[in-house]
């Protein structure tokens, strides 16, 4: 078990490091001069200004050296010269080219919004999805079951951002039920926080819960046909206990796998969610930082952050696996 976790951690770290190296290579060794658009930002770009910027961005050094500086900043304090000189505490992700603020601080500021959307949305779709799937499996063959499957197939066939956009158009623009969907901190006003997030949660929940309902229905139908369910029923275990404690426990393992694999999808989903509902989170920040001139430290930070989240989520799912399903042996 421990060996497995160590091995997985090493490969996870490898993914993250490779990702960040790839980014650096693209940006600094890419075909364009990264200093040029920055130079055009404030007033006319003179050769002197360009030379100073090139020096400040470290473009005179080799890309390996720059990567070394950046990577070192993750573990120790770093001095950054960009116009003025900034001291950036560890773990340092650099200084935003645009706001000149510390990227890590901005990341931490924007984290709660993204986290609220992702965690709230995931909780909603997982619970409703499994619940609906279980009910559909119990009532297999009835009109309700058929209706649920049909609705699920239909909604899954439409891209997520179209569903979110339609919800925003109707509920926010047309009927003005949830006009303000911008983020309110949970600690300041829990009610405003929840109210503003209802629509984003609903959008995520609607698309994903229908898909999860379909998975869980299939898994539950299979589980309910197993011998141990018949045995439990024959023993006189109540139907509720048979469904929840016996069948659901067997059916939930593959659903958790799908949930783990879906994490990347959930993350890209939040980018759309934030963009459509105009929520100031990490996804929207990343998109904004891409407008020319590219705010490279922000792009690097957001990509790194997302890569870490996805890798860690996959790891947790694999470990959870062995806890839920005793048949699974990690090796």
């Amino acid at each position, binding site marked *: 078990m421990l060996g497995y976790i160590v091995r997985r951690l090493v*490969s996870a770290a*490898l*993914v993250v490091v*490779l*990702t960040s190296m*790839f*980014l650096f290579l*693209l*940006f600094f060794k*890419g*075909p*364009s001069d*990264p200093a*040029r*658009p920055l130079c055009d930002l404030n007033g006319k770009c003179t050769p002197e200004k360009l030379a100073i910027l090139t020096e400040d961005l470290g473009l005179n050094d080799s890309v390996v050296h720059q990567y070394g500086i950046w990577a070192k900043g993750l573990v120790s304090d770093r001095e950054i010269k960009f116009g003025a000189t900034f001291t950036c505490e560890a773990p340092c992700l650099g200084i935003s080219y645009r706001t000149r603020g510390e990227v890590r601080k901005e990341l931490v500021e924007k984290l709660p919004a993204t986290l609220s959307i992702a965690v709230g949305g995931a909780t909603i779709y997982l619970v409703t999805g499994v619940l609906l799937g279980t009910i559909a499996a119990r009532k297999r063959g009835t009109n309700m079951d058929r209706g649920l499957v049909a609705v699920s*197939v*239909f909604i*899954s*066939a*439409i*891209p997520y*951002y*179209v569903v979110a*956009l*339609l919800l925003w*158009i109707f509920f926010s*623009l047309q009927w003005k039920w949830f006009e303000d969907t911008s983020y309110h901190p949970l600690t300041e006003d829990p009610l405003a926080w929840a109210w503003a997030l209802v629509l984003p949660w609903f959008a995520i929940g609607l698309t994903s819960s229908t898909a999860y309902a379909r998975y869980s229905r299939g898994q539950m139908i299979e589980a309910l046909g197993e011998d141990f369910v018949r045995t439990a029923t024959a023993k006189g275990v109540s139907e509720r206990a048979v469904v929840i404690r016996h069948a659901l426990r067997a059916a939930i393992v593959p659903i958790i796998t799908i949930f783990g*694999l879906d994490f*990347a*999808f959930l*993350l*890209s989903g939040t*980018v*759309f969610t934030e*963009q459509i509902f105009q929520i100031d989170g990490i996804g929207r920040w*990343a*998109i904004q930082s*891409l*407008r*020319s*001139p*590219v705010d490279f430290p922000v*792009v690097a930070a*957001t*990509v790194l952050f*997302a*890569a870490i989240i*996805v*890798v860690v989520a*996959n790891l947790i799912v694999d470990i959870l696996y062995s806890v839920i399903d005793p048949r699974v042996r990690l090796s």
Partner: protein
Amino acid sequence: MSVVGPSDVIQGHEPAGDGGMPTRARRRKALAGKSPTQIALARLAKDKIAIVCSVVLLLLVLLALFAPVITRAFDIYWDISDPAAPTPSQVLEYDGFPAIGPPFHGFTWDHPLGLAPTVGYDNLAYLLYGLRTSLLVALAATVLSTIVGVTLGLIAGFSRGVLDKIISFVTDLFLSFPYLLGMLALAPIVVSRFQGNLDDLARAQLFTLIGILVVFGWMGLARLIRGQVLSLREREFIQAAEVIGVPTHRILFKELLPNLVAPIVVSISLGLPAFVAAEAGLSFLGLGLTGTPSLGKMVSDATPYYSDYPQYLWLPVAAITLLTLSLNLLGDSVRDAFDPRTRR
């Protein structure tokens, strides 16, 4: 899926006793079995949803294919830099809204779906060319990622050993990396590289987009094929081929590949709508295409005008929905038709 399925035997079995000895020719005809692909196609032909979706898709493909003809017939343009196109000042009011057609004027045959505010291109022309882009990108990405996925899956599954380990690791590596991030990192670099030249930028964006979709689109199929090959290569017909000394590339492409038709077809039919959605989604975020007409870009262009000009937004939303919905439902039908476990 086996080379000779049980269905072949059942299909070929005919009740005896239709008087006299059947001639050799007749007997051969009666025994002609159906291949699994034929069975799947017969199933598809009976599926009402699949038929409806195919008709809708055929219509959309024809519209996209004949976009130049249709736009010429209506004398409409999506590219306002075209010398024949009316300049924005000719067709727009001072407030940026169109001077003819919706939202403030009646319907006109000159611009059946109206004009875009501020930029002044024709909505029908843009929609048709956007559809063309969607289908082109999705088709190219599907074909390329299928080739990559099948090849790597075949190699990994057949070679086992170190090569399999390496390919499997790379597959997992790409699987844990969301494609959106790749585009996030690549899009600005392409834009800044080709900033000066708009034509080159448009082409570069198109290739980058297809490239990204392929790079992040092959893993699922590679895994599937690898798994299938791992079990297929233990079968007698492969062992027999190996024993009589059939060269490896022949075993891969002539013996294994024909047995993998079903997963490949299913993966293609479900990959197309996914790529259509991805292209439109990336362009909607401003990470995909900016110089080429794209349904996703039209959505993001039209969103700010919704309260005054809702049709402008409904057009691309309806087009994306129709396209992905029919592709997805058809894909589901294809999957069911090729799945030997589905009973109807």
